[in-house]
């Protein structure tokens, strides 16, 4: 993992002092509320429905055991004993008091963490594949690139007051697990003709009220030119992105309105002007950062573990092993996902005690390292297969052993109207009800891989556009109304879901989902065809009537 040097440390400490000063000037009236809003947001502080919310950056989703313990301490001391892991690999605290926020920032700085640019119209926390350094299909670990971008984008004097927020994601693998196609910039590490690594760059993806998939603006960018190329993109966006309408201010709209060819030409022109001006870092600096992400000291192990195989005689363990493990590139190891989706509970929440259990397990079994996924789960990235039974037993005791990763109850949900000021409908209660309805483990196994994603408003924080089943909660004349979309996919075959029909009431949503799933089970081919594949084969039409109860259909007929 990356460790701060004296310069990184100084900047983060100074940022805390700056925030303290900003709050004091707001309280004294030197800053108006209108001036203060974006300033506090640039440090992750929102004013929500009931209280302030503080969003802490977890760069590219990598956490140490020590950092996780500190988050637990903050949850205990400054919140109500829990935190919420987000779809951007961050954590949010829902109940901090304004006067305590700077103290929380001090606690974070003590473990090399911060809230810098977790909100605001600036370059947000950079995300990456949560299986970085683990996956066998990886060309290169994306985290050194992501860390370089974190540093370059922090307190950028030119790009901190953009037309709108700006999100960057990086993957180094063949399979895209970082959803790079729906980010403002998506970066894929690729090989050049001579076998050297460089970057393919996409611009203009995003969800929200105008979902779009990013367009490739560069097939191959030499790695030593990344920062000047990013500056060129950001400069074109800062100068030309729309500022007249916040709903048209993201870079995706600029790319769409100019056309990708014209946008690319402008970027290349700016890039040529920036070349050779010392913006890029040298190979030694890239190597310095990369050295922090060197593989841990793995043991040489047989690829098959007898202890692990023997433990599978317990059907509960076998189910966990089937659903919650991801193949590790090193024989004898696995990446173990801890589900934060217990049946009937808010997706992504963890209590302080659970955070401490996770920290302890990471220390004992995973070289002290954890990952936060954009699906709102936690990964222990390097667990010996031999140790999986022990880890599982500890998770069972902590109430963290749900064996539902990738299944229908592994639901992504935004906080919705339970917390969020922008929400137009509830989303957590909908997630809880759906999860209860499909609680039966055998039934979940039968259904197989199926991602439900729920947003409580058009801003799409729950990524409903890219859910195999997407649910969008709206307000229709004072009544919550939910639109169902099918066929979204965040991965390699990035696709946006299509609306199934008119919106339905909240209490009808779980039954409608159940009818859609039952119909899929009826339509799928015998070899266990996955939901998304059945949908691609038969199209949306057969599913349309599943939206309404059968009685309604009969009555209308």
């Amino acid at each position, binding site marked *: 993992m990356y460790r701060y040097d004296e*310069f990184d440390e100084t*900047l983060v400490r*100074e940022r805390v002092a700056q925030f303290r000063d900003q709050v004091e000037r707001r309280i004294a009236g030197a*800053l108006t509320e209108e001036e203060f809003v974006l300033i506090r947001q640039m440090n992750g502080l929102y004013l929500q429905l009931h209280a302030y919310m503080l969003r802490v950056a977890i760069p590219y989703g990598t956490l140490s055991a020590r950092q996780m313990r500190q988050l637990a301490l903050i949850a205990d001391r400054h919140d109500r004993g829990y935190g919420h892991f987000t779809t951007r690999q961050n954590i949010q605290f829902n109940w901090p008091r304004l006067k305590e926020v700077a103290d929380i920032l001090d606690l974070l700085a003590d473990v090399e963490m911060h809230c810098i640019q977790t909100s605001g119209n600036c370059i947000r926390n950079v995300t990456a594949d949560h299986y970085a350094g683990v996956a066998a299909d990886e060309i290169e670990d994306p985290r050194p690139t992501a860390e370089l971008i974190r540093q370059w984008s922090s307190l950028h004097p030119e790009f901190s007051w953009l037309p709108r927020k700006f999100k960057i994601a990086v993957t180094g693998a063949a399979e895209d697990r970082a959803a790079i196609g729906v980010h403002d910039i998506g970066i894929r590490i690729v090989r050049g003709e001579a076998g050297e690594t460089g970057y393919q760059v996409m611009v203009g993806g995003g969800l929200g009220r105008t979902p779009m998939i990013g367009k490739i603006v560069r097939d191959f960018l030499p790695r030593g030119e990344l920062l000047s190329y990013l500056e060129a993109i950001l400069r074109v966006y800062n100068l030309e992105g729309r500022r007249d309408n916040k709903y048209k201010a993201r870079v995706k709209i600029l790319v769409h309105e100019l056309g990708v060819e014209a946008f690319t030409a402008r970027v290349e022109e700016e890039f040529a002007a920036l070349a050779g001006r010392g913006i890029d870092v040298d190979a030694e600096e890239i190597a*310095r950062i990369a050295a922090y992400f060197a593989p841990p000291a793995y043991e040489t192990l047989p690829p098959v573990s007898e202890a692990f195989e023997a433990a599978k005689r317990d059907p509960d363990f076998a189910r966990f092993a089937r659903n919650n493990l991801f193949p590790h590139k090193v024989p004898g190891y696995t990446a173990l996902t801890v589900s934060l989706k217990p049946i009937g509970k808010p997706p992504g929440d963890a209590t302080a005690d659970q955070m401490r259990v996770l920290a302890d397990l990471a220390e004992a079994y995973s070289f002290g390292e954890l990952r936060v996924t954009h699906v709102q789960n936690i990964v222990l990235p390097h667990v010996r297969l031999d140790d999986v039974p022990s880890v599982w037993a500890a998770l069972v005791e902590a109430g963290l052993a749900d064996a539902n990763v990738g299944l229908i109850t592994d639901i992504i949900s935004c906080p919705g109207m339970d917390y969020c000021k922008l929400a137009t409908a509830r989303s957590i209660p909908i997630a809880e009800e759906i999860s209860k309805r499909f609680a039966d483990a055998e039934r979940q196994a039968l259904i197989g891989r199926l991602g439900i994603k729920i947003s409580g408003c058009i801003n799409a924080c729950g990524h409903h556009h890219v859910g195999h089943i997407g649910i969008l909660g709206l307000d229709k004349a004072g009544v919550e109304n939910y639109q169902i979309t099918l066929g979204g996919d965040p991965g390699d075959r990035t696709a946006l879901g299509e609306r199934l029909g008119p919106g339905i009431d909240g209490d009808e949503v779980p039954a409608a989902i159940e009818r859609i799933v039952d119909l899929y089970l009826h339509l799928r081919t015998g070899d266990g065809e996955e939901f998304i594949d059945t949908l691609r084969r038969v199209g949306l039409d057969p599913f349309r009537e599943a939206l309404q109860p059968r009685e309604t259909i009969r009555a209308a007929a």
Partner: protein
Amino acid sequence: MPLLDRNGWTTESFTIVAYDDLDAALAARTPEQKLGVLVPNDIHPRMLAPVQDRLDLIAVQFPQHKDGRGFSLGRMLRQQGFTGTLRASGHILPDQFGFALHDGFDEVEIDEAQAARQPVEQWLHARALISESYQQTRDGPATIFEKRRAARAAG
């Protein structure tokens, strides 16, 4: 209008004209006149390239603090070789002062009401709070990346 630079309040010493009046002002200028132009923040810097050597000052408008186009304009004007005084004029906050100086601005001009609310001490203090920068600066010390390189070379 109150004017400040990195040392505190300062006084106006330029004759400043609107961009539309620039040609006439250049034609009519006297040798001792220090001439500046006020430009909107949606102008492309290349429009100023032909005349920048004859200008003592360029003032870029900041219509509201959340509109950050001026920061790019400042950097681009310096990149294309403008060496005169660069001024940020309008609604800009003490919290953005350091950024503006890093981007090549020399001065900030705000209205009387804002100056009353945000006295000069707050501007100087806000700027001093952040001493390090990963990005290149026009006004300040070496970047963090440069300091690391120097440490490696010494090392």
